[in-house]
């Protein structure tokens, strides 16, 4: 027996409309800013928006996985800073590019893994575990850099943040690639189902034979890894690793996930929504800059948008 296809499609359409709410918001923002500022739509500005958004978007993919398991990761900004500092320091000391980059990625993944380990082994709530890591990793960064930026990292390293493949900047290509992999895992791989199940009902997931501890280790490691990737891009772009890099980045990543409709209680959502959420935040920042709105007011606007989006979401599910 096969259920009528028609009904299946109907549900997909309503699902799409639900998702489309944030998409409609995004299109609305683009329309408003292109009317208010003639510079908004030109090629240079658009690639600039995307390149800036890519930093947050990449971290937000990791954050999506974490939040889907019902967790949260407050440490991504600090992990970004520490892994960047390690890479930069090693480059300064003359390590080969590949080794320095790998070291940064391993540090990021390792700190993320440690988050997961603390959560499953000592049963510490993710908020607390990653909050502690946020402080510790920032402290490690300051110790390692002695509070000074590490600069002069060489031309080859600059390619990651400033290079192009064809007409498209490398960070944008990386972002697209990471979203594609994230989408594949969540939609088409059993690992994704396990991630959703862990956040949907951890007891049921365990009884269904899922090793939820491994899933939790995986998502926090992934989040740390992607924070490190984001760190590589920004360090390469600025040709400098600042000890204060990524401060507050966790909040932008969480905002992107939440704007994208992923439920903070876990088990529902996905990376497509997160991409839209990250673009909304990126475009809002860029558009308000173009309109010469003071950064102080930008913060207020960002907060208001997040609140509005969540309020709409709640109304929908009621």
């Amino acid at each position: 027996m096969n259920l009528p296809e028609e009904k299946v499609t109907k549900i997909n359409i309503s699902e799409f409309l639900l998702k489309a709410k944030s998409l409609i918001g995004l299109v609305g923002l683009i329309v408003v800013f292109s009317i208010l500022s003639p510079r908004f739509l030109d090629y240079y500005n658009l690639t600039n928006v995307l390149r800036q958004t890519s930093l947050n978007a990449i971290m937000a993919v990791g954050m999506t996985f974490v939040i889907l398991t019902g967790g949260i990761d407050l440490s991504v900004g600090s992990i970004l800073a520490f892994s960047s500092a390690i890479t930069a320091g090693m480059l300064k000391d003359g390590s080969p590019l590949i080794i320095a980059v790998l070291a940064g990625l391993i540090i990021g993944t390792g700190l993320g893994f440690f988050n997961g380990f603390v959560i499953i082994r000592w049963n510490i709530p993710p908020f607390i575990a990653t909050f502690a890591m946020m402080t510790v990793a920032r402290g490690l960064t300051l110790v390692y850099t002695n509070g000074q930026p590490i600069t002069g990292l060489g031309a080859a390293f600059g390619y990651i943040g400033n290079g192009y493949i064809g007409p498209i900047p490398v960070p944008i290509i990386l972002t697209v690639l990471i979203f594609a992999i994230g989408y594949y895992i969540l939609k088409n791989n059993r690992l994704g189902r396990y991630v959703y199940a862990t956040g949907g009902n951890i007891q049921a997931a365990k009884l269904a034979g899922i090793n939820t501890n491994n899933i939790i280790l995986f998502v926090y490691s992934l989040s740390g890894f992607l924070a490190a990737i984001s760190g590589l891009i920004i360090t390469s772009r600025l040709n400098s690793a600042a000890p204060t890099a990524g401060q507050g980045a966790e909040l932008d990543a969480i905002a992107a996930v939440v704007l994208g409709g992923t439920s903070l209680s876990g088990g529902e959502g996905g990376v497509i929504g997160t991409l839209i959420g990250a673009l909304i935040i990126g475009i809002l920042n860029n558009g308000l800059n173009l309109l010469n709105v003071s950064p102080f007011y930008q913060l207020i606007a960002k907060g208001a948008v997040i609140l509005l989006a969540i309020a709409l979401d709640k109304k929908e599910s009621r």
Partner: protein
Amino acid sequence: MGFCKDLENIFLGREYLKSFNVIDWKKIKQEAAKKLSELGMNINVNRLVKYLSVGEQQMVEIARSLLMDAEILVMDEPTAALTEAETKKLFEVIRSLKSEGRTIIYISHRMNEIFEICDDYIVLRDGRFISQGKINEVTRDELVTMMVGRELKEQYPRESVPLGEEILRVENLSVKGLFENINFTVRKGEVVGFAGLIGAGRTEVAKTIFGFYKKTSGKIYLENEELKINNPKDAIDNGIIYLSEDRKNDGLILKHTLKENMTLSALKSISDYIGTIYHSKEKYLVNQMIEKLNIKTSSINQKISKLSGGNQQKIAIAKCLLTNPKLIILDEPTRGIDVGAKNEIYKLINNLKKQGIGIILISSELPEVLNISDRIIVMHEGRITGEILHEEATEEKVMLKAVGGE
């Protein structure tokens, strides 16, 4: 209450106050110590309750209720966590309360206690009043009959299937604090029923076989090979599956779809070596199960929170079946579903028997466990108290063993 101190617990809501509503801790401490020593308890009133044993905690709670100076005291299974010595003390307290002229309503499934401490009895069954009378005018057997006493008019379409070889053997299985020395076997095509009262340890035995609890001692053999099971995943890989008694809390993920729920335990068999899911195979298997179990849904992508209890239960069962089990443990498979769906589940059990699957059926519904099982194992307070063949089983026999009688 775990984080409060004893005395804070005992006086919660009834603190002695000095002027300006300041709590009079000194007086509270004295009173708490007095009440506890009346109960024969010598414990430090400054200790946190969570460090006390379960029995001691229970005594603290009783002390608290005594302080209410209530005319009527309702005690709901007060001895469930008490040792014999503690129970004796409690009974002394109850007797002295009685002599003070207070009324006590004592709820218990322990026949011995009821005959020891009570004057009158009331029997309730399935939420209805059954009878009332004097304890000294009733026998234990009469009481059990009243507790059971329903008529067996429901349909139990049980089919006899020739039993195959032994599939599961459990030897001296124990988990400290939950149950001990559990021994039994299950054969291919056999339904072994587990009867007993709630809290007898049946679900815990099942979850231990399934790898959810760590066994403290004992051995589990599947097809004569000893199993090393550390978690449910190992059990599933070995062909053992468990249907949860609580589909809403740990059986299903209500906010996910029918399809996602149904295939969750079987994803390995419908994905390739890197984990890519074969969507068309998944869809085919799900639709097959929907047809086989007669599940009513508008789509395989329906959120299951929107489906009826009976359909949810069928999805949970389908999820078990998709793992191709050799042994299936059904924990309260018909709880909270309508008669029609129940009947379908009984027929499904018949089908599983014919396929040579071993079945453990845990049920608190006596007629069900009596009529569906080939053999009935009765548990009482973490021990097996009896094993009865289907042909010889009566509700009275099972109930008597379930309440720990001879």
